[in-house]
């Protein structure tokens, strides 16, 4: 009984820390102006966070975190389909499963997941919002989506390392599967 309460308390700490990081990343990413913008593209920090939380905390946390992050991202995207909510939830779960079954957890795994996750996000966003809905073409994909994916991947790798450090600093909890 006491053990269960302790575990719950530890999870609350982790959830609070991840919630604060999510809010911070969302505010920075969607800040008006040209914060973090290089060559017309910005990193999508929430993508990196979803990859990191999935890879470090397991599929359940990755899925829930991805869903919440997606809801936030959808609130600033027109038209507000549930693209981000679905994509980020799936991304979180996929990253967790990849780390559990395919990749050896560590820097290389983070690198692979960051690159693939960012590329998938940029492609999905382009196909849905640009190609299908707003009339953008492959020029946009090559000049904005791919550089944006590269920038996001670099940011994602840093975020993965940060989340791993956070998990080590906070009291240990078992991954929820």
């Amino acid at each position, binding site marked *: 009984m006491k053990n269960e309460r302790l575990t719950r308390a530890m999870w609350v700490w982790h959830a609070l820390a991840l919630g604060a990081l999510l809010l911070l990343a969302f505010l920075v*990413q*969607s*800040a*008006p*102006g*040209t914060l973090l*913008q290089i*060559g*017309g*593209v*910005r*990193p*999508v*920090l929430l993508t990196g966070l979803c990859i990191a939380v999935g890879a470090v905390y397991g599929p359940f946390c990755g899925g829930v975190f991805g869903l919440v992050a997606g809801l936030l991202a959808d*609130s*600033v*995207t*027109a*038209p*507000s389909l549930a693209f981000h909510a679905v994509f980020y939830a799936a991304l979180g779960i996929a990253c967790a499963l990849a780390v559990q079954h395919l990749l050896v957890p560590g820097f290389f795994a983070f690198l692979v997941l960051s690159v693939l996750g960012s590329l998938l*996000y*940029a492609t999905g*966003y382009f196909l849905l*919002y*640009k190609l299908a*809905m*707003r*009339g*953008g*073409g492959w*020029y*946009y994909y090559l*000049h*904005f989506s791919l550089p*944006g994916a590269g920038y996001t991947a670099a940011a994602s790798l840093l975020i993965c390392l940060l989340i791993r450090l956070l998990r080590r600093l906070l009291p240990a909890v078992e991954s929820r599967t």
Partner: protein
Amino acid sequence: MIRFFTSRGFRVLLAVVCVLAVVSGGFALAGRALSPQSDLLGAILSPLQKLGGAVTGQMERFFTAVGRLETLEEENNALREELRTYREQLVEYDRYQRENAFYKDFLEMKEQHADYAFQPATVTARDAADACGSFTIDAGRLDGVALHDPVITGDGLVGYVADLGNTMATVVTVLDPKIGVGAVVSRTREAGVVRGDQTLVEQGVCSLSYLQSAAAVSIGDTVITSGAGGVFPKGLIIGTVTEVRKDASNVSLQAVVKPTADLQALTQVMVITDFEGQGGLGDEK
């Protein structure tokens, strides 16, 4: 007692005192202020006196400071509070200055277009994945905003409302290929359509297409809305022509237009919720 007065020590002492008294008296009578012994002692003691003075001075300051510590702390806190207030006032002042300039522009626009109904809004967020600069504002359906309402700044057209909530709306800019704005060149009245072009997004410009090949458009011309279609009111400044070229089909001319509104640095905008001749795209109002 007699033994003391008759002792050798007393006699030596007496002799020394007498010598000093005589020497001092002699120097005094000769007009010199300091006797040699005083001078000597002064020379020896002066550095020590300075050191002592410095130490005691420091100690005095220290004890004074300790005594005033509470007062100083209060004073320091009061000054910090005052500084904080001034900083806040400075921020407020900057904000008022910006707002003042913003509303001044709109007042001019309102005077020119009495039929416009405005809803001021603040830019709250940007879509990080969209290079065309779509953004979210803090005004929505409850504020009278409708889908496809034009969004402007004092400098000119920004875009239109593409998605709508009760208290917020998402705006796509004129850089987005989704938008097509009926436009005319102010000087020559030649008509075309301003549309976002993905190859021009990086430079922050859009294109004015479907101009007749004989059109007399030149660099520096101002492009304004034509009012055709009823989505955008007539006469809004869109931007200035920076380049004129043949379009891809080589049939008509295409002008590159730089929007006058700074689309990357928007903080406040106005939504035109109503204007004379408003038609819309058929799915709003």
